[in-house]
């Protein structure tokens, strides 16, 4: 059962990373903000100004 739970945790963590939820959580932690409209807007401002632009393959 613990293996199943571990696999489920990893799957959820993977989805959170793919869907930027983990990045947003790290942003909140780093900037010591609570989740809000303003925080999410700041998160996107940072992402757009970043040189790290996610690529997608063909």
């Amino acid at each position, binding site marked *: 059962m613990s293996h199943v739970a571990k696999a489920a945790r990893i799957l959820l963590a993977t989805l959170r990373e793919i869907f*930027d939820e983990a990045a947003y959580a790290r942003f909140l932690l780093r900037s010591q903000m609570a989740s809000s409209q303003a925080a999410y807007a700041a998160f996107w401002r940072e992402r757009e100004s970043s040189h790290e632009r996610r690529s997608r393959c063909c």
Partner: protein
Amino acid sequence: MSRFVSIVVWGAVAALAALAVGVVAVHRGEPISTLWLVVAAACCFALGFRFYSKFIAAKILALDALRATPAERLENGRDFVVTNKWVVFGHHFAAIAGPGPLVGPVLAAQFGYLPGTLWVLAGAVFAGCVQDFVILLFSVRRDGKSITEMAREEIGRVGGFVAYGAVIAILIIILAVAALVVVNALKGSPWGTFTIAMTIPIALLMGVYLRRIRPGKVLEVSVFGFLLVLLAIWGGQWVSQTPSMARVFTLQASSLAMLIIVYGFAASALPVWLLLAPRDYLSTFVKLGAIALLAVGIVVLHPALHMPAVTRFADGTGPVFAGKIFPFAFITIACGAISGFHSLISIGTTPKLIARETQTRMVGYGGMLAEAAVAIMAITAACVLQPGVYFAINSPAGVVGQTPVAATATISGWGFPVTASEMQALAHAVGEQTLFNRTGGAPAFAVGMAHIFSQSLGGEKVMGLWYHFAVMFEALFILSLLDAGTRAVRFMIQDALSHIYQPLGQTSWYPSILTTSAVIVGAWGYFLWQGVKDPLGGINSLWPLFGIANQLLAAVALCAATTIVIKMHRTKYVLVTLVPLAWLVAVTFTAAWQKVLDRDPHLGFLAQAQALAAGPATAATPRLIFNNRLDAALTAVFVVMVAMVLIESVRGWIAVLSGRKEARMKETPFVMTRLVEGKA
């Protein structure tokens, strides 16, 4: 596992691989089960990962678990983050798996199932996975540098310049080809057009929900968006059956092309959180689910392959695209075997998340194997169709004839029997008005996928829903690529323009955004329009152009990799990167030569221009002649650029090997890891 057990187990896997590949290669006559393909792929990929990637990791790259990665050394909670290896693997796979491994193998199925299958198996294990793996590791050892930076530093300034130019050119061509695939999938299809149109307000709704209502709850809103998309598919059926609504959503190829061009411009200029990001989330959600579903469907239902192992079109007279198996099968299937585009992804986010060097093997090599498995699924989906049906869907009217009767007579005359009534019944079953001349690969893949699922899940009654689910899944993929690709090229051009006038580089300055967006959309829109108006269906000229450009980028990446391998004093293992490089050079240069100079008007751009000039003139003739000459010039430029990189690389290798030049690399110095075993 003890050594004896290991030998027995891997010996059995090798024997099974040999048996399955042998059956796939030798069997002729009666249809064979898709399980043989699945077993051949599973065993070959397992062997490749277990032995070949381990050999590369140990002998060439000397992966060092004690060497701190940039994710650890530069951890900032933003770009550089130590991440669980399975999470990085999933993230990397989601980034590299686009529509390419679905569309290319479907088009290459005109040669039969065997050439594509063998190329995917061998190409992935010995070329594609190697490229992804070594480039990822070299990027990790250079703090996540890009392929253009690595090419400039390790090969020379020409390498960097060519890599930069190739990236922009490839992106523009791929965006045009991808848009053309969507146009061909949606033309004359009110159901499909309605469903895809609905994904735009759904994405906007998701964007507003994320921004205003539940900030950051992406998984939650993706599930919500997915349910709305399913509702849109169901609603599309109602639209197609309601004459007044069906009229509104039944569009010709040229109208769809204009709408996609306008959409591309809007998506590039709108704030990323509003349309691009939600659509990307939705597309990824659907993509991961649909790929998993298809994998389960193929393994559980294992339908028979009706396409012959090798068709008569191996001689180069194929209707889907012109050209012989060599070199065209190898540029038609790029993603799935080897794709230069991956060298861009391998140096994006992934190297900044890897906790240990040793994990690059699973993420780089293993991630590409997963994509190759997707390509095998696409070959399966195309080849479970009756060959006559496959060719009726994928052949342009300019080749097989304008009417159903003419088309079926031509195709039946090739030895692939199909009737107009059979095609009409199939079109009716999937909710389309016609399935003739639906070039581009997406409709054939969708019919194949619907065919597989209709064998168990709901039967033929729900075939239309499955078909449109597959079309929606591919179109969503492609439109996400259009959004992200247009924006990516825009950033690259803005970066370059900032050296001329600094404000042009600001990604939030609207005059710059609008100008550069218009230039990029105009560029891929031009090629899209060219494809829509091409009497041979567009795919015939544009897909090879994309394939050549993509594989040439892979050649640039392998030049950089070979240079680094030589500088690492691992010259005795240099064939690992040199053989794929030599193969790609042979394939792409031959393909380019034939596409430019072959005397067959169906194959050579210049011969087609000449044939058009000699034939009866219409209003479109001057433009068609110009387009063919433009394609020829573009292909020639690609080849010259890569030849320059190749020459510069070879000169560098000779200088290093003869001792005339110091083998100096730009690696980050070794730093001991501080990570405990559990964290990595």
